[in-house]
Every structure is written in structure tokens, then in C-alpha cells.
């Protein structure tokens, strides 16, 4: 409840003071939280580590851009199109590798990502390494912006914050529904013991494909949003290794296989990374990677201190104690 209120009101002070940068940080937190929830479906529930999810981020960004530029589709229609294309491609490339287990599956996903990079850099349809440009809108107010994902001028930071909040919320609710459904049970069964799962009639290959396609759909939505935010899609940007790693790290640091794990992870990790980049990454120390070294050290400390993720901390106990204090002081 409180979290929802904070998320809704977060950008207001920055909008007033004109510090748009903090709205963008919020946008990145929500985007990575959403991607983390998507990655958690295959990595946390189905237990198959996917090291190349950025392929579907890229497919989403490119598909939406092509549909908008060439066919003049509305951004939201393009988003749906991107999700469908991404899921279809994911199903086709994933089914053959679902025969692989554990590390071998993970290696196959890395290989796919490596194959995707030269394709992205050279394929004429997507303009190779020169990328695609999404035309900038020239007018229209905030509502028009929300309907088209195009915000000319100053409303952009606020607009994309709320767009990402909307997509994040939909992803979270969808993931919660899936977790409680037959699929959610089957994913975890395949994770805990694949032979045991097959022996009670679960087609493990099918459910690995379903889990990865669900992840692909989330990444396609994220990629679309990112494309409209950046107004351009470049292969080295959408296939950037961070789109593989950050969502996964958010899930692992926050709590692997738990619905809110990646959300907590993104809320903790992304602001630290931004803070490091804007403080230690600039000025006399710029370009030496000091910010990245310290960022890496922070992650190692968190991971070593709480190997089961930050969600494994006794949050409910702390909350109960806080409440106890509050009522005690209220009486006094």
C-alpha cells in the first residue's frame, strides 16, 4: 500500500524542481524491476538460468520500431506486435535447447546472444549497425503522449516514468497470477526435480519453453518502451550485456524465485549504480572504472551477506517490532 503510494508520488517533487534526472532513474528502476520479474519466471521458478535475455529485449525494440516506422502502427499496437513476435521467435529457438540441463542450457543461451550480435550489426532490414530512428512527435499533450509513447519536450521524464510504472504493475500482477496457477506449480516442479516432474506427467521441455516465452514477452515489452524512450534502436545498445545481467542480478540479489525479489533488487541496485556513475564516474576519476569496481564490491558484499537474497531478511519481524514500538509509545 505504502509502496504503491510512494511509487505514484515519487516523481512529483522532481517534476516541480526540474530535476528530470531522478525521474529517469525511477524509469530505469521500474524497467529493470519489470525485466527482473520476467527473468525470474525462467531463472527463479523454472530454475533454468538464461544469460541471454537481451535478445528478446532487442527483438521487442526492433519489431516495435519497424512496425511504427514502416507501417505507421500506434506504439501500443506495436508493443503487442513486439510481444507476439518475440514469443514466437523464443519458442522456435528455445525448444531445441530444452533437451539440455543446468549449465548446458545456460551456455546455449549465451551462445544465442553471441549469435544475435553480428546479426543485429549487419542485417539490412534493421539497418545494421546504423540502427533505426523513431520519428519525434511534434505536438500533443500528456494524454496524447501516453497514448502514443511520444512526449515532445519537457514532459518526457514524467511520461516515461508513469508508462514504466504501468507496464511494471501489469507485469507484477500477471506474474502473481502465473505463480499461483498450474504453470507456476509446474515450473517449480521442473526446477526441483526434472525426472520427478516427468514421472507425474509434466512435459518438462514444454514448460521450459513456456517459461522462457513468458520472459521473452516481458523483455519485448521492456525493449519497446526503451526504444520509444531512446527514440532510436542500435544493436550494441539493445543487445548490451547489462540487459542480460541487471535483471538477473536484481532477481538474485533481491530473492531468487520470489515474486517481489527482483523488485527489491532493482530498487537497491539501480540507484546505487546511477549514484556511482554520477559521482565516482565523473570528475578527476572519470574513465577509470572506479565506479564499476565499487559497484561490483557492493554487490559481492550483499551476495555474500545474504546468499538467499535481501527478501530473506526477517522483514515481517522488523515490521512487527516497529508496530510494537509505535503502539507502546502511543500508550505512553
Amino acid at each position, binding site marked *: 500500500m505504502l509502496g504503491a503510494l510512494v511509487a505514484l508520488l515519487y516523481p512529483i517533487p522532481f517534476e516541480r524542481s526540474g530535476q528530470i534526472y531522478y525521474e529517469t532513474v525511477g524509469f530505469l528502476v521500474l524497467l529493470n524491476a519489470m525485466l527482473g520479474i520476467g527473468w525470474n519466471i525462467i531463472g527463479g521458478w523454472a530454475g533454468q538460468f538464461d544469460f541471454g535475455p537481451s535478445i528478446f529485449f532487442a527483438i521487442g525494440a526492433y519489431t516495435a520500431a519497424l512496425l511504427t516506422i514502416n507501417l505507421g502502427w500506434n506504439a501500443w499496437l506495436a508493443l503487442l506486435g513486439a510481444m507476439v513476435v518475440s514469443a514466437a521467435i523464443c519458442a522456435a529457438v528455445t525448444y531445441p535447447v530444452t533437451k539440455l540441463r543446468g549449465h548446458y542450457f545456460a551456455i546455449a543461451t549465451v551462445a544465442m546472444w553471441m549469435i544475435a550480435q553480428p546479426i543485429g550489426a549487419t542485417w539490412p532490414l534493421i539497418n545494421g549497425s546504423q540502427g533505426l530512428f523513431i520519428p519525434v512527435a511534434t505536438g500533443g499533450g500528456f494524454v496524447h503522449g501516453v497514448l502514443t509513447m511520444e512526449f515532445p519536450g519537457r514532459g518526457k521524464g514524467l511520461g516515461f516514468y508513469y508508462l514504466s510504472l504501468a507496464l511494471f504493475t501489469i507485469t507484477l500482477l500477471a506474474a502473481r497470477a502465473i505463480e*499461483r*496457477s*498450474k504453470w507456476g*506449480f*509446474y515450473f*517449480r*516442479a521442473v*526446477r*526441483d*526435480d526434472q*525426472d*520427478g*516432474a*516427468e*514421472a*507425474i*506427467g*509434466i*512435459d*518438462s521441455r514444454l514448460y521450459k519453453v513456456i517459461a522462457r516465452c513468458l520472459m521473452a514477452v516481458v523483455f519485448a515489452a521492456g525493449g519497446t518502451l526503451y526504444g520509444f524512450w531512446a527514440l532510436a534502436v542500435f544493436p550494441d545498445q539493445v543487445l548490451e550485456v547489462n540487459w542480460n545481467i541487471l535483471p538477473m542480478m536484481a532477481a538474485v540479489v533481491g530473492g531468487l*524465485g520470489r515474486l517481489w525479489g527482483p523488485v527489491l533488487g532493482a530498487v537497491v541496485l539501480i540507484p546505487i549504480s546511477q549514484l556511482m556513475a554520477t559521482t565516482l564516474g565523473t570528475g578527476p576519476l572519470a574513465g577509470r572504472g572506479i565506479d564499476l569496481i565499487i559497484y561490483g564490491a557492493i554487490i559481492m558484499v550483499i551476495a555474500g551477506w545474504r546468499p538467499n537474497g535481501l527478501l530473506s531478511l526477517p522483514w515481517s519481524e522488523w515490521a512487527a517490532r516497529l508496530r510494537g514500538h509505535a503502539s507502546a509509545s502511543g500508550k505512553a
Partner: protein
Amino acid sequence: MAPLLQVERSTKRFGGLIANRDVSLAIEPGEIVGLIGPNGAGKTTLFNCISGALHPDEGRIVLDGADITHARPERVCRLGIARTWQVVRSFGRMTVLENVICGAFRRTSRVAAARARALELLAFTGLAGKEHVVAAALTLADKKRLEITRALATSPRLLLLDEAMSGLTPFETTAAVELVRRIHGELRLAICVVEHVMEVVMPLSHRVVVLDHGEKLTEGPPAEVARDERVITAYLGDRYRGRA
């Protein structure tokens, strides 16, 4: 009446090793069959071939008219065979209830219905009260019991129990035998048990099949098999002579 399960001359090789050679076996509906033999006789290999975890190199396996020789495990399960494993394969990070719900989805896709059926079966197998325990935290006896419950949740016609009673204390073994009897009596299933403990298999089984070096040595009612010289030499040992 045609048998429920028919294994016809099944042969399975692992490289040069012949784990099963020309093994034939039939199980009638509602029958309890004991599968015995020394270590390495090919009992688990035969189970794996029947349940689809492995496929025989030669021969045929037919379940109620359907050829399942090369069927994958999930299809074999759908056709009505459920199994447990010698090394337990419970879903360690899920609760007892969630484990059984996974099995119950075989008959329904609705979570509420699967849950109701799982609770019913947990009460039947004596795991009531442990529904919300994480499976990895159970004792071995309870893990084996959970695996049987999960298998039952798929509504099988034939239940394959691979050493469901090995490694248990005498008290736990008695309880497990009691459970198998109740499953047979109340659910009217055909059951095939692989077991080393003769005191368990002999009184439980209607019929005993003896494997040795991958081949079927003999089969018949427990009392007859226990008197068979070849079985005594290959497996039971002189200690068992005259006891049955």
C-alpha cells in the same frame, strides 16, 4: 481378460552390459506383483523402461492395448502408470501440499480442485498435519510416503514402487506395508513393488518375479518361489531355506 501391463521380451543394453535380456512380464488389474533379485539384476532398469525413463532396445511394452515402448515418461503417466524412485525425487523446495498438488493437476487444471484432491490424499496416506512442511525437511520415511501420495494424485491404474521401504526402520517399514495394503484395498490399483526385504515382499505379493543377471529366473506364488532351488542359490541364500 487381457493383462493391464504386458512386457514382451524386453532387452536393454548399456554398451556391452546387458541389463535386461528377453524379460517378459504381465501384470493383471488389481494385482500386487513383487519384483526381486540381487543387486544389479536389472529390476530398476525394467522399471525405468516401463515408466519411459529409458526405452528398451528390443521388445515391446503394452499398457492396456497402447504401445508405450518408446513413450516419454509424461505420456506413460497420462496413460495410467505412476512410479516412485529408489532415490527420492520429491520437489525439495516446495511444501508437501504443493508436491501433491503438482500430481493432482493430472486430472484438473483448477488449483482449488487440485488442492482439494491433494488434501484428501494426504489424509489418506497419513501425512495430514505436515501439509506446509517444505519437502526437503521431511524424514526419509515421510519423503517416500510423500512420493507415493504424489504418484497417487495422478490417478494411476498401475503403481510402480521402487524400494519404497528400503532404508526405513522396522517400525516405519511396517507402516509402509500397511499403506501399500490400504492403497491396494481401497483404491483397487495394480501395484508392482521392487524390494529387498523378503519379509515385506513375500507376504505382500500375490505373485513374485525373480530377476538374475538381467534375465527372468522364475515367477510364481511367493511360497513356491521361496522353495525354488535356483532362487535360493542366486538370491535368497541358504539362510532362507525352510523359512517360507
